[in-house]
């Protein structure tokens, strides 16, 4: 849930409004970092997480 909130902030207004012509670079970088964060989060929760 926290990860989703982080993603929603970083891919949404107003953050994306500050990058102008470099917006595409920012979006792809943030996207990749977000995927890495999901990877870390799912790997970290591998042991015995049944909660949902």
């Amino acid at each position, binding site marked *: 849930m926290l990860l989703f909130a982080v993603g929603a902030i970083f891919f949404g*207004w107003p953050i994306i*409004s500050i990058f102008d*012509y470099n917006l595409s670079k920012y*979006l*792809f970088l943030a996207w990749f970092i*977000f*995927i890495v964060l*999901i990877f870390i*989060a799912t790997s970290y929760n591998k042991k015995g997480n049944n909660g*949902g």
Partner: protein
Amino acid sequence: MFSPVFLFSIIFAYLVLLFLIAHFAERMDKKGSRLVSNPYVYSLSLAVYCTSWTFYGSVGKAANAGLSFLTIYLGPTLMAALWWLVLRKIVYICKENRITTISDFIASRYGNSLFLSALITFVAVIGITPYLGLQLKAIMHTFSILTGQPGGSRFAGWTIALLLGIFAVFFGARRVDVSERHSGLVFAVAFESAIKLIAFISVGVFVTYGLFNGFDDIFDRFRLTEFAANMTLGEEANVSFLEWTSLTFLSMMAIMFLPRQFQVSVVENSSEKHIKKAMWLFPLYLFLINIFVLPIAYGGLLLGEPQNNADYFVLSIPLKQGVPMLALFIFIGGFSAATAMIIVESLALSTMVMNSFVMPAVWRMKAMKSFYAMILNTRRIVIIGLVFLGYTFAIYIGEFYSLVNIGLKSFEAVTIFAPSFLLGLYWKGGNKKGAIAGILVGFSIWIYTLIIPALLKAGIIAEGGVMDYIFSSTFLNPTALFGLKGLDQWSHSLFWGLLLNLFFYVSVSVFTKKTDAETRQTIIFVDSYSPLKLGLSNRPKSVDEIEMILAEYIGATGAAETVNRFLRKNGIARDSIDHEWLLRLKSEAENLLSGALGPSISNLIFQDGAYLTGDEKVRLSDSVKRISSSLMLSRQELAEKNRQLALLKEFSENIIESIPLGVATLDESLKVKYWNKAMKTIIGIDQSDALDIEADLLLRCLEPDLFTPAIREGEVTCKRNPGSGPQMILKVNLSSLTGDQAGYVLVIEDITEKKKIEEDLFRTTKHASIGRLAAGVSHEIGNPLASISSLVQELLAEKQSSFGFNSLSTINMHIDRIARIVRNLGDFARLHPRQKVSTNLRNIIEGTINLVKYDKNFRKIDINTDIEETPEFKIDPDQMQQVFLNLMLNARDAMPEGGSISISISHNNGYVKTIFSDTGTGVDYETRDKLFDPFFTTKGTKGTGLGLSICYSIIKDHGGTIEIDSVKDRGTKFIIKLPLKRELKEELEG
């Protein structure tokens, strides 16, 4: 350009390859291979999301509206972060209730409402058909581009639609039970995902690095063009931040509610664990397939390609740059993207249509003749019909819109399901009336704000009259409903659709009541992970009633089996079943039929008043029995997999049972749960006696305490005295079980023999070192001692005073003692070089007995012999006699008050065994271990501590062993084993 025949051949060859791959995967899956059921294939199959819209349309969108295309992929990436919460719950509910479509899911949540299921299916078919058409439009258009013959594209589209329909039928509609996974189809879709990714990256690399000098080059040059606004968002760009947000939200909903996504992510899911890996693998796929979208779009515009043809830059650029083979590969990639979508979407929609329209219609019309064949054939017709519906759309309407426009309309359509679906998962207040109201309103807004303007633009609805009136109205204008102006069409439709949908869903739910069935389903869905808490329905009244209803469809025997199996499994007596278990039984019976008939019709069967005439019952019963036979086939496959699993289990157990290590598993309270054969050999306790007993009661070591006060994890060496036998030395490893299982695994190795060999080696090495030392000492001390002894003898021979004589006698006595020690040291040092000759051991023993029998100290000792005839073998007779003499003298010293010595010689297995036993004082355990150590003696100053060391060294030098078995106050036994054929061994080694 390519000829149409050539291109058709390529398409046909590709479809044949796809067919073979699917067929191969299906066979592998049946054999129990994990080729299909793994998270990577699952993640790749989710990429069916990337259709020809992604493949062609993203570039088109990027060239026309800049970065907004990314929302279509960022939305699913964001949603993926929630999958462990949301998707896992959906998968769990679907598996528990054999739900196979999104319409069945929502209908089931709201009391198995048939109307709701039909409504959702209707909305989905209307909403998704343009999306199917989009794929066929892309195939037809790209076919025209590659052949350069626009006229033939319709025929190509028609033929391809038919081929894809047949493919979907073959792998999706071979059985009636749609709750089964389609392993071949899933693997084929995963393969297509890989192909389209490789193809897209190929063209991306070609444009970015083949035609330009990388990303920066393209971006820098593009920034100077008139299209530079496409690099940004906001007021000056082509896409507002509001549109960006709306599109992101729409794609978040699409990844959950598009029927094909529901099919691959929920129905085709084989393990919840795959979701966890797909949460990052699927977004990674989306990331990779989008990396080159901007360079291709910007590159195409920089190369002078027309902006309105940007959807097909990926083909037109390689063609114009003279790389037709790359264009052909790109065509195959685009074809992959389209075919995967068409096949899976038509399969998913056909199941919805079957469960929501066809089955209820069959039921209500009571048209039950040839029921089984009719269901299967109808399903096949529906699949092909849906594909051709899409084809029709592509021909007549599709040409007026870009790929992205068509796709987004479908996204908006499936977002209509979001409130009733998502709130239905977590909010118990939602009911059927609210869901129907919300969906009806949402659908109406979708039609009004998106479809009417589209039809007007396509010319299907004529301008003027009513249309002019509503479009000029401030309040009713479909593009500015209720006077809301300034929004793009997607945000506008989403805003009103979602707002009114939510409003009606919540308000109608709050102000109307739920039925008992709805309440029951609400609990099943919202509290899905909790045990079922039922008790509100008053039907059915008895087990017999359920069995009777079930018997009408699967026969009396099948019904009785089903009911009895349920009762047996849950340990319930038929007569004393309570209301809650009765409802569970009813639910089980419904599930049994829902796999073939859909949950709604299955629910209908169990309602009161669903009565049939006798003839109808017979015919329907026959048909459902055939369905059951089909299910039986599936059960046979399941049984085959179970058999393979059992073989695997047997193999694993065989390994654990065969290894020479003791293996046991313990639960958290240290009770034994598994105990292998080696454990019995080592510990001496049978498995049956060990199970459920606490491990610390079974395995008590002298040291250390294994299980108390705290559990020792890791490896320890444990000395154990098992009672009558010799002491054991065990290596014990205790470690926690990994994964979800709690408890420990205990591995024990008997290292007694190993330790003994280590000690022998240590002792031999020590003897060798001391031998070298002894040689030096005896030489250096022996010579001066001989000189001193001679002088003392001479002095003693002369006349001495009494004091002098006594002193010299004492000196002489001590010199004798030193000389004896030096002689022994010399003996110890001179052990190895002696000559070995063929000798009979009996003669040596008899010679030794003759030596001692006249000794006065042996008078009180009986010497008994039991000597077998042994063959002669090579030994050093003098050294061997020294051994026997040492042992007899030791025995004599141990029996000062007399006793008996028994000597026996026997031979077998290539060894001669000599046993000397006495009835003397014996030694304790600690002393026993040190007896062969040089200079260790139990005789005080009388012994040199070298006698037994010499014996040990002599026997070792002969390749034999000498062991001691002694119990304090009960006597001592020396066991000597000498090999008969040592000389042969020595020759071979030499």
